[in-house]
Protein backbone atom coordinates (compact mmCIF):
# COMPACT_ATOMS: atom_id res chain seq x y z
CA UNK A 1 0.00 0.00 0.00
CA UNK A 2 1.26 3.49 -0.75
CA UNK A 3 1.50 6.25 1.81
CA UNK A 4 -1.39 8.00 0.07
CA UNK A 5 -3.68 5.00 0.20
CA UNK A 6 -2.83 4.47 3.86
CA UNK A 7 -3.84 8.03 4.68
CA UNK A 8 -7.17 7.77 2.88
CA UNK A 9 -10.08 6.31 4.81
CA UNK A 10 -11.56 3.23 3.21
CA UNK A 11 -15.25 2.36 3.27
CA UNK A 12 -14.80 0.05 6.28
CA UNK A 13 -13.34 2.88 8.34
CA UNK A 14 -16.15 5.20 7.26
CA UNK A 15 -18.79 2.60 8.13
CA UNK A 16 -17.15 2.22 11.54
CA UNK A 17 -17.49 5.97 12.14
CA UNK A 18 -21.13 5.80 11.11
CA UNK A 19 -21.69 2.87 13.48
CA UNK A 20 -20.17 4.80 16.39
CA UNK A 21 -22.57 7.69 15.80
CA UNK A 22 -25.78 5.86 15.07
CA UNK A 23 -25.41 3.62 18.11
CA UNK A 24 -25.40 6.61 20.46
CA UNK A 25 -29.06 6.64 21.38
CA UNK A 26 -29.00 10.07 22.99
CA UNK A 27 -27.33 11.67 20.01
CA UNK A 28 -29.67 9.87 17.64
CA UNK A 29 -32.71 11.14 19.54
CA UNK A 30 -31.47 14.73 19.68
CA UNK A 31 -30.54 14.84 16.00
CA UNK A 32 -33.85 13.28 15.00
CA UNK A 33 -35.74 15.77 17.17
CA UNK A 34 -33.76 18.75 15.88
CA UNK A 35 -34.32 17.82 12.25
CA UNK A 36 -37.27 15.51 11.60
CA UNK A 37 -39.09 16.60 14.74
CA UNK A 38 -38.54 20.26 14.02
CA UNK A 39 -39.84 19.93 10.48
CA UNK A 40 -42.92 17.98 11.51
CA UNK A 41 -43.72 20.28 14.41
CA UNK A 42 -43.14 23.52 12.49
CA UNK A 43 -45.29 22.67 9.49
CA UNK A 44 -47.77 20.73 11.62
CA UNK A 45 -48.42 23.78 13.77
CA UNK A 46 -48.70 26.06 10.74
CA UNK A 47 -51.17 23.66 9.10
CA UNK A 48 -53.25 23.33 12.28
CA UNK A 49 -53.33 27.09 12.79
CA UNK A 50 -54.42 27.63 9.23
CA UNK A 51 -57.07 24.94 9.49
CA UNK A 52 -58.35 26.38 12.75
CA UNK A 53 -58.42 30.02 11.67
CA UNK A 54 -57.76 30.58 7.95
CA UNK A 55 -58.48 34.30 8.24
CA UNK A 56 -55.71 35.03 10.70
CA UNK A 57 -53.30 32.30 9.67
CA UNK A 58 -52.38 31.82 6.04
CA UNK A 59 -51.55 28.49 4.42
CA UNK A 60 -48.65 26.53 5.90
CA UNK A 61 -46.79 26.26 2.60
CA UNK A 62 -45.49 28.55 -0.11
CA UNK A 63 -42.22 30.39 -0.52
CA UNK A 64 -42.83 32.42 2.66
CA UNK A 65 -43.04 29.34 4.84
CA UNK A 66 -40.21 27.67 2.97
CA UNK A 67 -38.09 30.57 4.28
CA UNK A 68 -39.45 30.20 7.79
CA UNK A 69 -38.91 26.44 7.66
CA UNK A 70 -35.35 26.95 6.47
CA UNK A 71 -34.72 29.32 9.39
CA UNK A 72 -35.91 26.70 11.88
CA UNK A 73 -34.10 23.82 10.19
CA UNK A 74 -30.87 25.78 9.77
CA UNK A 75 -30.92 26.88 13.39
CA UNK A 76 -31.68 23.46 14.86
CA UNK A 77 -29.71 21.68 12.16
CA UNK A 78 -26.72 23.76 13.19
CA UNK A 79 -27.17 22.59 16.78
CA UNK A 80 -27.43 18.98 15.58
CA UNK A 81 -24.38 19.44 13.36
CA UNK A 82 -22.38 20.81 16.26
CA UNK A 83 -23.32 17.87 18.45
CA UNK A 84 -22.49 15.33 15.76
CA UNK A 85 -19.24 17.04 14.79
CA UNK A 86 -18.05 17.36 18.37
CA UNK A 87 -18.94 13.73 19.06
CA UNK A 88 -17.21 12.49 15.93
CA UNK A 89 -14.15 14.59 16.73
CA UNK A 90 -13.71 13.79 20.40
CA UNK A 91 -15.64 10.53 20.91
CA UNK A 92 -12.67 8.22 20.46
CA UNK A 93 -10.49 10.40 22.65
CA UNK A 94 -12.92 10.70 25.52
CA UNK A 95 -13.58 6.95 25.56
CA UNK A 96 -9.87 6.11 25.27
CA UNK A 97 -10.45 4.20 22.03
CA UNK A 98 -8.25 6.55 20.02
CA UNK A 99 -5.18 4.88 21.52
CA UNK A 100 -6.54 1.48 20.56
CA UNK A 101 -7.00 2.67 16.99
CA UNK A 102 -3.59 4.33 16.88
CA UNK A 103 -1.81 1.11 17.87
CA UNK A 104 -3.19 -0.62 14.80
CA UNK A 105 -0.61 1.33 12.83
CA UNK A 106 -3.30 2.78 10.60
CA UNK A 107 -2.49 6.30 9.48
CA UNK A 108 -3.88 8.81 11.94
CA UNK A 109 -4.78 11.02 9.01
CA UNK A 110 -7.00 8.23 7.72
CA UNK A 111 -8.56 7.85 11.16
CA UNK A 112 -9.33 11.57 11.19
CA UNK A 113 -10.54 11.79 7.62
CA UNK A 114 -12.93 8.86 8.05
CA UNK A 115 -14.83 10.97 10.55
CA UNK A 116 -15.83 13.44 7.85
CA UNK A 117 -17.83 11.19 5.50
CA UNK A 118 -18.99 9.03 8.41
CA UNK A 119 -20.35 11.99 10.33
CA UNK A 120 -21.83 13.67 7.27
CA UNK A 121 -23.60 10.47 6.24
CA UNK A 122 -25.20 10.31 9.67
CA UNK A 123 -26.09 13.99 9.97
CA UNK A 124 -27.14 14.81 6.44
CA UNK A 125 -29.44 11.81 6.12
CA UNK A 126 -31.58 13.32 8.89
CA UNK A 127 -31.31 16.84 7.50
CA UNK A 128 -32.20 15.69 4.00
CA UNK A 129 -35.29 13.81 5.15
CA UNK A 130 -36.32 16.74 7.35
CA UNK A 131 -35.93 19.11 4.42
CA UNK A 132 -37.79 16.71 2.17
CA UNK A 133 -40.73 16.88 4.56
CA UNK A 134 -40.47 20.67 4.66
CA UNK A 135 -40.31 20.94 0.88
CA UNK A 136 -43.30 18.65 0.52
CA UNK A 137 -45.25 20.71 3.04
CA UNK A 138 -44.45 24.00 1.30
CA UNK A 139 -45.90 22.60 -1.93
CA UNK A 140 -48.84 20.64 -0.53
CA UNK A 141 -49.93 23.38 1.88
CA UNK A 142 -49.17 26.33 -0.44
CA UNK A 143 -52.83 27.31 -0.87
CA UNK A 144 -52.98 30.80 -2.32
CA UNK A 145 -49.29 31.46 -1.60
CA UNK A 146 -46.63 31.24 -4.29
CA UNK A 147 -45.53 27.64 -4.74
CA UNK A 148 -41.73 27.36 -4.58
CA UNK A 149 -40.18 26.39 -7.88
CA UNK A 150 -38.17 23.20 -8.26
CA UNK A 151 -35.01 25.27 -8.62
CA UNK A 152 -35.75 27.17 -5.42
CA UNK A 153 -36.48 23.94 -3.56
CA UNK A 154 -33.28 22.37 -4.84
CA UNK A 155 -31.22 25.48 -4.05
CA UNK A 156 -32.72 25.80 -0.59
CA UNK A 157 -32.08 22.14 0.15
CA UNK A 158 -28.51 22.39 -1.02
CA UNK A 159 -28.00 25.48 1.13
CA UNK A 160 -29.40 23.75 4.21
CA UNK A 161 -27.15 20.75 3.67
CA UNK A 162 -24.18 23.06 3.16
CA UNK A 163 -24.96 24.98 6.35
CA UNK A 164 -25.22 21.82 8.43
CA UNK A 165 -22.12 20.31 6.82
CA UNK A 166 -20.22 23.54 7.53
CA UNK A 167 -20.99 23.56 11.25
CA UNK A 168 -20.32 19.83 11.43
CA UNK A 169 -16.88 20.37 9.91
CA UNK A 170 -16.09 23.20 12.31
CA UNK A 171 -17.18 21.18 15.33
CA UNK A 172 -15.26 18.13 14.09
CA UNK A 173 -12.06 20.06 13.53
CA UNK A 174 -12.29 21.94 16.80
CA UNK A 175 -13.14 18.83 18.84
CA UNK A 176 -10.25 16.92 17.27
CA UNK A 177 -8.03 19.87 18.12
CA UNK A 178 -9.00 20.38 21.76
CA UNK A 179 -10.12 16.83 22.52
CA UNK A 180 -13.19 17.83 24.50
CA UNK A 181 -16.71 17.28 23.22
CA UNK A 182 -18.50 19.37 25.81
CA UNK A 183 -16.15 22.33 25.53
CA UNK A 184 -16.57 22.46 21.77
CA UNK A 185 -20.35 22.19 21.96
CA UNK A 186 -20.48 25.02 24.46
CA UNK A 187 -18.09 27.29 22.60
CA UNK A 188 -19.59 26.74 19.16
CA UNK A 189 -23.21 27.08 20.25
CA UNK A 190 -22.36 30.27 22.12
CA UNK A 191 -20.53 31.55 19.05
CA UNK A 192 -23.38 30.70 16.69
CA UNK A 193 -26.33 31.65 18.81
CA UNK A 194 -25.05 34.57 20.89
CA UNK A 195 -21.76 36.05 19.69
CA UNK A 196 -22.39 36.03 15.95
CA UNK A 197 -25.77 37.84 16.04
CA UNK A 198 -24.27 40.52 18.29
CA UNK A 199 -21.18 41.03 16.13
CA UNK A 200 -23.22 40.98 12.93
CA UNK A 201 -25.45 43.74 14.26
CA UNK A 202 -22.57 46.16 14.97
CA UNK A 203 -22.16 48.22 11.79
CA UNK A 204 -18.93 49.80 13.02
CA UNK A 205 -17.20 46.44 12.52
CA UNK A 206 -17.67 47.01 8.80
CA UNK A 207 -15.96 44.45 6.60
CA UNK A 208 -14.89 42.48 9.64
CA UNK A 209 -18.42 41.12 9.86
CA UNK A 210 -17.91 39.35 6.55
CA UNK A 211 -15.52 37.00 8.31
CA UNK A 212 -18.36 35.65 10.43
CA UNK A 213 -19.37 32.24 9.10
CA UNK A 214 -23.10 32.88 9.51
CA UNK A 215 -22.89 36.05 7.45
CA UNK A 216 -21.24 34.19 4.59
CA UNK A 217 -23.56 31.22 4.84
CA UNK A 218 -26.58 33.51 4.68
CA UNK A 219 -25.19 35.10 1.54
CA UNK A 220 -25.08 31.67 -0.09
CA UNK A 221 -28.81 31.05 0.52
CA UNK A 222 -31.17 31.44 -2.47
CA UNK A 223 -32.17 35.07 -2.83
CA UNK A 224 -35.91 34.41 -2.51
CA UNK A 225 -35.57 33.01 1.00
CA UNK A 226 -32.34 34.66 2.17
CA UNK A 227 -33.77 37.12 4.66
CA UNK A 228 -36.33 34.67 5.96
CA UNK A 229 -33.73 31.94 6.38
CA UNK A 230 -31.40 34.36 8.13
CA UNK A 231 -34.18 35.32 10.54
CA UNK A 232 -33.35 38.99 10.23
CA UNK A 233 -31.22 41.51 8.42
CA UNK A 234 -28.50 40.34 6.06
CA UNK A 235 -24.98 41.78 6.14
CA UNK A 236 -24.07 42.69 2.56
CA UNK A 237 -21.16 40.69 1.19
CA UNK A 238 -20.15 39.44 -2.23
CA UNK A 239 -20.72 35.85 -3.32
CA UNK A 240 -16.99 35.31 -3.89
CA UNK A 241 -16.12 36.61 -0.44
CA UNK A 242 -18.78 34.43 1.14
CA UNK A 243 -17.50 31.32 -0.64
CA UNK A 244 -13.93 32.14 0.34
CA UNK A 245 -14.81 32.75 3.99
CA UNK A 246 -16.73 29.48 4.24
CA UNK A 247 -13.93 27.53 2.57
CA UNK A 248 -11.22 29.07 4.74
CA UNK A 249 -13.08 28.36 7.98
CA UNK A 250 -13.68 24.73 7.00
CA UNK A 251 -10.21 24.06 5.67
CA UNK A 252 -8.49 25.78 8.58
CA UNK A 253 -10.42 23.93 11.28
CA UNK A 254 -10.17 20.56 9.54
CA UNK A 255 -6.44 21.05 8.99
CA UNK A 256 -5.93 21.93 12.66
CA UNK A 257 -7.99 18.93 13.72
CA UNK A 258 -6.03 16.57 11.51
CA UNK A 259 -2.71 18.03 12.62
CA UNK A 260 -3.60 17.48 16.27
CA UNK A 261 -4.86 13.98 15.59
CA UNK A 262 -1.58 13.09 13.92
CA UNK A 263 0.67 14.70 16.53
CA UNK A 264 -1.31 13.91 19.67
CA UNK A 265 0.42 11.77 22.30
CA UNK A 266 -2.07 8.92 22.72
Amino acid at each position, binding site marked *: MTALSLSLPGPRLIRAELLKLRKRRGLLAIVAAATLGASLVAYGILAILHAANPVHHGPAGGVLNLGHGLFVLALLGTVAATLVGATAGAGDLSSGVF*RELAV*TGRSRSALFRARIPGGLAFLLSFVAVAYGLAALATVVFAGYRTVPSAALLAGSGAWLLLTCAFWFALALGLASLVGSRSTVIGVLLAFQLAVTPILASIPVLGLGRELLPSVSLTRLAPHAVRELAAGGSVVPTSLGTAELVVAVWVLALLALGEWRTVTRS*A
Partner: protein
Amino acid sequence: MRVRTVRPMNTSRSDSYVVEVEGLTKRFGARVAVNDVALRIPRGSAFGYLGPNGAGKTTLIRMLLGLTWPTAGSMRLLGLPMPNGRAAALARVGAIVEEPRFHRYLTGRENLSIVAAAREPEAHRRIDGALDRVGLAARADERAGAYSLGMRQRLGVARCLLANPELLILDEPMNGLDPAGMEDFRLMIRGLVDEGRTVVLSSHLLDEVEKTCDAIAIVDRGRVVVQGPIDTLTGDAPTVLVATSDDLRAQALLSGADIEPVDGGLRVGIEDERSIAAINRRLVEAGVDVHRLEPERVSLERRFLEITSRLEAAA
Protein backbone atom coordinates in the same frame (compact mmCIF):
# COMPACT_ATOMS: atom_id res chain seq x y z
CA MET B 1 24.09 1.96 39.74
CA ARG B 2 24.96 -1.65 39.04
CA VAL B 3 23.54 -3.03 35.84
CA ARG B 4 23.77 -6.75 35.36
CA THR B 5 22.98 -8.52 32.12
CA VAL B 6 22.50 -12.13 33.00
CA ARG B 7 22.87 -13.42 29.47
CA PRO B 8 24.91 -11.24 27.16
CA MET B 9 22.75 -10.45 24.18
CA ASN B 10 23.80 -10.99 20.65
CA THR B 11 24.94 -7.67 19.32
CA SER B 12 23.97 -8.41 15.70
CA ARG B 13 20.42 -7.51 14.68
CA SER B 14 18.44 -10.47 13.42
CA ASP B 15 15.00 -11.99 13.20
CA SER B 16 15.64 -13.56 16.58
CA TYR B 17 14.30 -10.48 18.30
CA VAL B 18 10.89 -8.89 17.99
CA VAL B 19 11.93 -5.79 19.90
CA GLU B 20 15.36 -4.18 19.76
CA VAL B 21 15.91 -0.96 21.59
CA GLU B 22 19.12 1.00 21.94
CA GLY B 23 19.76 4.06 24.06
CA LEU B 24 16.06 4.80 24.34
CA THR B 25 15.34 7.85 26.45
CA LYS B 26 12.19 9.77 27.21
CA ARG B 27 12.15 12.98 29.21
CA PHE B 28 9.15 14.86 30.48
CA GLY B 29 10.72 18.19 31.26
CA ALA B 30 13.38 17.58 33.88
CA ARG B 31 12.06 14.13 34.73
CA VAL B 32 13.62 11.16 32.92
CA ALA B 33 10.95 8.47 32.53
CA VAL B 34 13.02 6.13 30.38
CA ASN B 35 16.77 6.37 30.69
CA ASP B 36 19.10 5.03 28.01
CA VAL B 37 17.35 1.68 27.79
CA ALA B 38 18.81 -1.19 25.79
CA LEU B 39 16.45 -4.11 25.44
CA ARG B 40 16.07 -7.13 23.21
CA ILE B 41 13.07 -9.39 23.35
CA PRO B 42 13.53 -12.85 21.86
CA ARG B 43 10.99 -14.07 19.33
CA GLY B 44 8.58 -16.81 20.32
CA SER B 45 8.80 -16.27 24.07
CA ALA B 46 6.72 -14.89 26.89
CA PHE B 47 8.72 -11.93 28.11
CA GLY B 48 8.05 -10.16 31.38
CA TYR B 49 8.82 -6.48 31.70
CA LEU B 50 8.90 -5.85 35.43
CA GLY B 51 9.24 -2.80 37.54
CA PRO B 52 7.73 -0.91 40.41
CA ASN B 53 5.02 1.63 39.72
CA GLY B 54 6.43 4.67 37.98
CA ALA B 55 9.51 2.81 36.74
CA GLY B 56 8.80 3.72 33.13
CA LYS B 57 7.26 0.47 31.88
CA THR B 58 4.23 2.01 30.20
CA THR B 59 6.24 4.89 28.75
CA LEU B 60 8.55 2.44 27.00
CA ILE B 61 5.58 0.50 25.64
CA ARG B 62 3.95 3.70 24.42
CA MET B 63 7.14 4.64 22.57
CA LEU B 64 7.38 1.19 21.02
CA LEU B 65 3.83 1.54 19.74
CA GLY B 66 4.32 5.03 18.38
CA LEU B 67 1.93 6.56 20.90
CA THR B 68 4.54 9.00 22.12
CA TRP B 69 7.89 10.01 20.76
CA PRO B 70 11.29 9.22 22.30
CA THR B 71 13.67 11.99 23.25
CA ALA B 72 16.62 9.89 22.06
CA GLY B 73 17.50 6.38 20.96
CA SER B 74 16.46 3.89 18.32
CA MET B 75 13.85 1.14 18.16
CA ARG B 76 13.12 -1.79 15.90
CA LEU B 77 9.82 -3.62 16.08
CA LEU B 78 9.57 -6.98 14.28
CA GLY B 79 12.81 -6.07 12.59
CA LEU B 80 11.44 -2.78 11.22
CA PRO B 81 12.84 0.57 12.27
CA MET B 82 10.48 2.80 14.18
CA PRO B 83 8.86 5.16 13.48
CA ASN B 84 9.50 4.73 9.73
CA GLY B 85 8.24 1.16 9.65
CA ARG B 86 5.43 1.88 12.07
CA ALA B 87 2.48 0.97 9.85
CA ALA B 88 3.93 -2.33 8.67
CA ALA B 89 5.18 -3.33 12.11
CA LEU B 90 2.03 -2.44 14.03
CA ALA B 91 -0.11 -4.30 11.53
CA ARG B 92 1.38 -7.48 13.08
CA VAL B 93 1.26 -6.28 16.68
CA GLY B 94 -1.61 -6.46 19.13
CA ALA B 95 -1.34 -4.32 22.21
CA ILE B 96 -3.14 -3.39 25.39
CA VAL B 97 -1.74 -0.26 26.97
CA GLU B 98 -2.81 0.20 30.57
CA GLU B 99 -6.50 -0.72 30.86
CA PRO B 100 -8.16 -1.73 27.58
CA ARG B 101 -10.68 0.94 26.62
CA PHE B 102 -13.90 0.55 24.67
CA HIS B 103 -16.94 2.48 23.59
CA ARG B 104 -19.19 1.51 26.48
CA TYR B 105 -22.39 1.95 24.49
CA LEU B 106 -21.28 -0.50 21.80
CA THR B 107 -21.37 -4.27 22.18
CA GLY B 108 -18.21 -6.29 22.50
CA ARG B 109 -18.56 -7.43 18.90
CA GLU B 110 -19.16 -3.89 17.63
CA ASN B 111 -16.11 -2.66 19.50
CA LEU B 112 -14.02 -5.29 17.75
CA SER B 113 -15.49 -4.33 14.39
CA ILE B 114 -14.46 -0.71 14.98
CA VAL B 115 -10.83 -1.72 15.38
CA ALA B 116 -11.03 -4.37 12.67
CA ALA B 117 -12.02 -1.57 10.28
CA ALA B 118 -8.66 0.06 10.92
CA ARG B 119 -6.82 -3.17 10.18
CA GLU B 120 -6.53 -5.40 7.13
CA PRO B 121 -9.80 -6.73 5.61
CA GLU B 122 -9.18 -10.21 7.08
CA ALA B 123 -9.47 -8.74 10.56
CA HIS B 124 -13.27 -8.69 10.29
CA ARG B 125 -13.30 -12.42 9.62
CA ARG B 126 -11.27 -13.03 12.77
CA ILE B 127 -13.81 -11.43 15.12
CA ASP B 128 -15.82 -14.56 15.90
CA GLY B 129 -12.73 -16.68 16.39
CA ALA B 130 -11.13 -14.11 18.67
CA LEU B 131 -14.28 -13.81 20.80
CA ASP B 132 -14.50 -17.56 21.03
CA ARG B 133 -10.88 -17.89 22.03
CA VAL B 134 -11.17 -15.51 24.96
CA GLY B 135 -14.45 -17.06 26.08
CA LEU B 136 -16.68 -14.12 25.26
CA ALA B 137 -18.62 -15.54 22.32
CA ALA B 138 -21.78 -15.96 24.37
CA ARG B 139 -21.73 -12.37 25.62
CA ALA B 140 -20.35 -10.67 22.55
CA ASP B 141 -23.61 -8.89 21.81
CA GLU B 142 -23.90 -7.27 25.23
CA ARG B 143 -22.82 -3.69 25.69
CA ALA B 144 -19.18 -3.35 26.75
CA GLY B 145 -20.26 -0.99 29.53
CA ALA B 146 -21.85 -3.97 31.27
CA TYR B 147 -18.65 -6.04 31.17
CA SER B 148 -16.61 -6.75 34.29
CA LEU B 149 -12.96 -5.74 34.35
CA GLY B 150 -11.96 -9.33 33.65
CA MET B 151 -14.25 -9.45 30.63
CA ARG B 152 -12.83 -6.17 29.36
CA GLN B 153 -9.32 -7.58 29.71
CA ARG B 154 -10.36 -10.60 27.69
CA LEU B 155 -12.06 -8.43 25.11
CA GLY B 156 -8.83 -6.44 24.91
CA VAL B 157 -6.93 -9.63 24.10
CA ALA B 158 -9.56 -10.53 21.50
CA ARG B 159 -8.98 -7.13 19.94
CA CYS B 160 -5.24 -7.87 19.82
CA LEU B 161 -5.93 -11.17 18.07
CA LEU B 162 -7.68 -9.39 15.19
CA ALA B 163 -4.22 -8.57 13.87
CA ASN B 164 -3.19 -12.24 13.90
CA PRO B 165 -0.22 -10.78 15.75
CA GLU B 166 3.36 -11.97 15.78
CA LEU B 167 3.80 -9.88 18.90
CA LEU B 168 1.36 -9.10 21.70
CA ILE B 169 2.23 -6.36 24.15
CA LEU B 170 0.07 -6.55 27.25
CA ASP B 171 0.45 -3.85 29.85
CA GLU B 172 -0.69 -5.09 33.29
CA PRO B 173 -3.18 -7.53 31.74
CA MET B 174 -3.92 -9.37 34.97
CA ASN B 175 -4.92 -6.35 37.00
CA GLY B 176 -8.29 -6.94 38.59
CA LEU B 177 -8.53 -10.59 37.66
CA ASP B 178 -9.56 -13.16 40.25
CA PRO B 179 -7.33 -16.24 40.76
CA ALA B 180 -9.33 -18.32 38.29
CA GLY B 181 -9.19 -15.49 35.77
CA MET B 182 -5.42 -15.25 36.22
CA GLU B 183 -5.06 -18.95 35.65
CA ASP B 184 -7.14 -18.71 32.47
CA PHE B 185 -5.10 -15.76 31.33
CA ARG B 186 -1.85 -17.57 32.00
CA LEU B 187 -2.97 -20.57 29.98
CA MET B 188 -4.10 -18.32 27.17
CA ILE B 189 -0.74 -16.57 27.05
CA ARG B 190 1.13 -19.85 27.03
CA GLY B 191 -1.17 -21.02 24.26
CA LEU B 192 -0.31 -17.95 22.22
CA VAL B 193 3.40 -18.53 22.77
CA ASP B 194 3.01 -22.16 21.77
CA GLU B 195 1.64 -20.93 18.45
CA GLY B 196 4.92 -19.14 17.86
CA ARG B 197 3.79 -15.68 18.90
CA THR B 198 5.75 -13.48 21.26
CA VAL B 199 3.96 -12.08 24.29
CA VAL B 200 5.38 -9.18 26.26
CA LEU B 201 3.83 -8.80 29.68
CA SER B 202 4.39 -5.63 31.58
CA SER B 203 3.48 -6.28 35.17
CA HIS B 204 4.23 -5.85 38.81
CA LEU B 205 2.59 -9.20 39.66
CA LEU B 206 5.87 -11.05 40.03
CA ASP B 207 4.42 -14.42 40.86
CA GLU B 208 2.28 -14.40 37.73
CA VAL B 209 5.18 -13.31 35.57
CA GLU B 210 7.35 -16.04 37.02
CA LYS B 211 4.69 -18.64 36.25
CA THR B 212 4.03 -17.33 32.76
CA CYS B 213 7.21 -15.93 31.27
CA ASP B 214 10.37 -17.41 29.84
CA ALA B 215 12.52 -14.32 30.16
CA ILE B 216 12.28 -10.98 31.88
CA ALA B 217 13.74 -7.54 32.15
CA ILE B 218 13.59 -5.61 35.40
CA VAL B 219 13.30 -1.88 35.06
CA ASP B 220 13.82 0.63 37.83
CA ARG B 221 13.71 4.39 37.61
CA GLY B 222 13.69 4.29 33.86
CA ARG B 223 16.63 1.91 33.46
CA VAL B 224 16.70 -1.78 32.61
CA VAL B 225 18.83 -3.21 35.40
CA VAL B 226 18.60 -6.93 34.64
CA GLN B 227 17.40 -8.92 31.69
CA GLY B 228 17.59 -12.54 30.74
CA PRO B 229 15.89 -15.93 31.03
CA ILE B 230 13.97 -16.43 34.26
CA ASP B 231 15.72 -19.70 35.02
CA THR B 232 19.06 -17.95 34.94
CA LEU B 233 17.85 -15.10 37.09
CA THR B 234 16.22 -17.19 39.74
CA GLY B 235 18.45 -20.22 39.52
CA ASP B 236 21.83 -18.78 40.35
CA ALA B 237 23.21 -18.56 43.91
CA PRO B 238 21.14 -21.49 45.30
CA THR B 239 20.37 -21.49 48.99
CA VAL B 240 19.12 -23.89 51.57
CA LEU B 241 16.94 -23.18 54.58
CA VAL B 242 18.27 -24.80 57.74
CA ALA B 243 16.38 -25.12 61.01
CA THR B 244 18.24 -26.69 63.92
CA SER B 245 18.09 -27.23 67.65
CA ASP B 246 20.76 -24.51 68.05
CA ASP B 247 20.87 -21.98 65.25
CA LEU B 248 23.66 -19.93 66.85
CA ARG B 249 25.94 -22.96 67.01
CA ALA B 250 24.94 -24.00 63.54
CA GLN B 251 25.84 -20.55 62.27
CA ALA B 252 29.26 -20.88 63.89
CA LEU B 253 29.77 -24.35 62.45
CA LEU B 254 28.91 -23.15 58.96
CA SER B 255 30.80 -19.91 59.29
CA GLY B 256 32.64 -20.30 56.01
CA ALA B 257 29.39 -20.18 54.06
CA ASP B 258 27.15 -17.29 53.08
CA ILE B 259 24.69 -17.34 56.01
CA GLU B 260 21.73 -15.15 56.72
CA PRO B 261 19.46 -15.59 59.76
CA VAL B 262 15.83 -15.73 58.68
CA ASP B 263 12.55 -16.34 60.41
CA GLY B 264 12.71 -19.89 61.81
CA GLY B 265 16.32 -20.70 60.96
CA LEU B 266 19.17 -19.85 58.65
CA ARG B 267 19.47 -19.30 54.92
CA VAL B 268 22.75 -20.80 53.77
CA GLY B 269 24.28 -20.20 50.38
CA ILE B 270 25.55 -23.36 48.70
CA GLU B 271 27.60 -24.20 45.65
CA ASP B 272 25.23 -26.93 44.44
CA GLU B 273 22.83 -29.54 45.79
CA ARG B 274 25.69 -31.83 46.88
CA SER B 275 26.57 -29.26 49.52
CA ILE B 276 23.30 -29.98 51.32
CA ALA B 277 24.52 -33.37 52.47
CA ALA B 278 27.77 -31.84 53.65
CA ILE B 279 25.93 -29.27 55.73
CA ASN B 280 23.75 -31.95 57.27
CA ARG B 281 26.75 -34.11 58.06
CA ARG B 282 28.70 -31.28 59.66
CA LEU B 283 25.81 -30.27 61.89
CA VAL B 284 24.84 -33.79 62.95
CA GLU B 285 28.44 -34.77 63.66
CA ALA B 286 28.73 -31.69 65.88
CA GLY B 287 25.63 -32.76 67.82
CA VAL B 288 23.24 -30.21 66.40
CA ASP B 289 19.84 -31.65 65.58
CA VAL B 290 18.65 -30.72 62.09
CA HIS B 291 14.90 -30.13 61.98
CA ARG B 292 14.70 -28.82 58.49
CA LEU B 293 17.01 -28.80 55.50
CA GLU B 294 15.19 -27.43 52.50
CA PRO B 295 16.70 -26.38 49.20
CA GLU B 296 15.34 -22.98 48.37
CA ARG B 297 14.63 -21.78 44.90
CA VAL B 298 15.21 -18.05 44.62
CA SER B 299 11.85 -16.60 43.71
CA LEU B 300 11.55 -13.88 41.18
CA GLU B 301 9.99 -11.74 43.87
CA ARG B 302 13.04 -12.11 46.07
CA ARG B 303 15.40 -11.40 43.20
CA PHE B 304 13.31 -8.40 42.21
CA LEU B 305 13.31 -7.01 45.74
CA GLU B 306 17.03 -7.60 46.10
CA ILE B 307 17.74 -5.69 42.93
CA THR B 308 15.37 -2.81 43.47
CA SER B 309 16.27 -2.38 47.16
CA ARG B 310 19.95 -2.45 46.29
CA LEU B 311 19.38 0.28 43.77
CA GLU B 312 17.34 2.23 46.27
CA ALA B 313 20.17 2.02 48.79
CA ALA B 314 22.69 3.10 46.18
CA ALA B 315 20.62 6.09 45.10
